[in-house]
């Protein structure tokens, strides 16, 4: 079509159409398109459905060729850059991370140029060389006519009768029985997702008397270790040494039980520390601290990121994922962000030798969303 059009156009140079006037019939590509054009109801005005002037086509051809040449060079460049950095040690080897960077940039860059060039060239071609008009082909109505629908249901019921499905109850019922187990099977297979969690999500390995390890080491921490930190902070885990796990504690338990030990001057405590640790309890949050040391779950109550950006000046604990902010001096109340409830607090104290110990489990289950549902 394009070729035809070009031919046409070349011949018609002498009487080039004035822009804005109705389309000259000799400009039309074929009979069909002429009809479609005159009848079209598309978004373009009839005056805009035209073919381009020869000048414009020549310009478009040149521009498109420039893009295609750029694309060609990009493609050649891609092959060259592939061989530029051989995997062997001689010369700039790709194994060197720095060289690998250049290789990546060159490969990706040349490929981008090649593909963008082809796309850009084709767009220029379509916009400046190809004629510009709309072709409409009408659809029939999508829903079937009432007659067709009626005849189908008649046909369906007749077939059911003829096949004996409605007349032979034994066969019908056994067929349904045969299908029933298959229908239930997917539900039964859900068992493979594992046992029900039971109490597991509500309890952690922290029990009364459990020592604390500084996370990453196997060193028990004492209250007096924090003596020189009027504004200290450290991540800690329960002091477990289970041989089954390389770090003495399973990852699941680590994720549930990791705490942030924070030390601050006792003058900095705010009113929230006098609240009961949980509803109906006569212990306050302050009872659960030890000489200015407080232990909060490190797992954000929003979606469970480790919240540990602690600012000692404001006592804010910030979660890096969604900026939930908790006030460590005020019972870890939410002061900003999407979290709904404070970080759970762990009751702490010291044993006879001065080691920090837990005095029980958290006041609330640790972790994210699941517990939000229960609350709201």
């Amino acid at each position, binding site marked *: 079509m394009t070729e035809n059009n070009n031919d046409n156009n070349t011949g018609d140079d002498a009487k080039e159409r004035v822009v*804005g006037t109705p389309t000259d019939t000799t400009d039309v590509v074929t009979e069909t398109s002429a009809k479609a054009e005159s009848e079209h109801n598309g*978004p373009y005005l009839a005056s805009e459905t035209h073919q381009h002037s020869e000048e414009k086509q020549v310009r478009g051809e040149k521009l498109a060729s420039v893009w295609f040449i750029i694309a060609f060079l990009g493609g050649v460049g891609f092959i060259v850059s592939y061989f530029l950095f051989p995997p062997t040690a001689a010369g700039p080897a790709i194994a060197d991370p720095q060289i690998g960077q250049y290789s990546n940039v060159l490969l990706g860059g040349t490929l981008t140029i090649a593909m963008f060039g082809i796309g850009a060239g084709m*767009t220029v071609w379509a916009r400046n060389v190809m004629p510009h008009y709309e072709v409409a082909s009408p659809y029939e109505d999508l829903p079937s006519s009432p007659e067709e629908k009626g005849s189908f249901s008649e046909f369906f019921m007749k077939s059911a009768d003829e096949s004996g499905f409605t007349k032979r109850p034994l066969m019908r019922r056994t067929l349904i029985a045969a299908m029933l187990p298959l229908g239930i099977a997917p539900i039964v297979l859900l068992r493979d997702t594992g046992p029900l969690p039971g109490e597991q999500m509500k309890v952690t390995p922290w029990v009364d008397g459990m020592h604390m390890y500084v996370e990453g080491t196997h060193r028990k921490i004492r209250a007096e270790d*924090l003596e020189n930190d009027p504004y*200290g902070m*450290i991540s800690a885990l329960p002091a477990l040494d289970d041989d089954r796990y390389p770090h003495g504690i399973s990852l699941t338990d680590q994720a549930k039980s990791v705490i942030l030990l924070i030390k601050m001057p006792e003058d900095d405590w705010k009113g929230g520390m006098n609240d009961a640790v949980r509803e109906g309890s006569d212990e306050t949050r302050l009872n659960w601290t030890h000489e200015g040391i407080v232990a909060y779950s490190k797992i954000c109550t929003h979606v469970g990121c480790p919240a*540990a*950006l602690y*600012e000692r000046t*404001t006592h804010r604990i910030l979660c890096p994922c969604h900026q939930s902010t908790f006030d460590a001096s005020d019972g870890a109340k939410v002061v900003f962000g999407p979290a709904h409830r404070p970080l759970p607090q762990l009751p702490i104290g010291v044993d006879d030798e001065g080691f920090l110990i837990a005095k029980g489990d958290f006041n609330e289950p640790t972790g994210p969303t699941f517990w939000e549902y229960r609350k709201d």
Partner: protein
Amino acid sequence: MKWITARRRHPLAGYVVVILALALFGVGYAGLAPTSDQAQAQTLAAEAPSADDVDIAQGKTIFDQTCASCHGLDGSGSDLNGPDLREVGPAALDFQVSTGRMPSMDPDSQMPRKPMAVSEQDLADLIAYYNAQIRTNGAGADVPYEVPDAAPQRADFDQEEAYEEALSEYEAEYDAYIEGASNTDMGMKLYLTNCAHCHSWSGGGGALTDGRWAPEIHDSSPREIYEAMVSGPGAMPMFSDGVVTPEEKQELISYVKTLQAEPNAGGIFDLDRVGQVAEGFIGWTVGLSLIIACAIWITAKQRAHD
């Protein structure tokens, strides 16, 4: 101007503006983003300077001239937002001055890392004066002189030999400290659980609340990292030798040093290791804008008079 007036209604003018704006943002970011090749302060005091080497009177002069306007003549602080220095300890002082954060030009804003404003000798004098006159009952952490500081700079030495000697001495000390770390895995865990939240997994730093930020730590010397841990500059909590023992700190610092030596994987379009989320966001925004611009171009309605 005429040139622009003639072309501003050109059909491609819109795309040119979009591309120029994108390029401006890209180049502007690259220009404004903090660069990592700032000058490092230098020190070479493997041991605490002996009493003969420091001049407490000189230290007092420096303190009164450069510190007292905010921190008060007795170091007790003032209304000008200068905190009380009497219990912060010399490690804090050494950290703040050697990283160029103090003396501060603007007490109301967080100070970035800068070249040190005073000389090494002045700093030693200042610390001696602080220890003798301002520090209360030995409060706060001491300067960890056994931990190596930044490498000596040629400019601080008159003679080439003296510099070479100081440099090789420093390098031996530095290597001994870093290689003395035997359990970098532990250092990594300590870093990731206690530092990475603010300073980022790559050490590139990150944002805090109220416009504060955790600085990037690529330029920090082992001693500066140590001092930051024990003194807790700004909003950073403290990690005293009781909480993280000196051996554990050595592992941690050694890990940070391996982080610093890590080649930057950003290639020529590197975003200064701002982190995957931010990099992804920038990639999406810029990439999608370009794709949308292309889509607009491909599908744009052609006008007859073009």
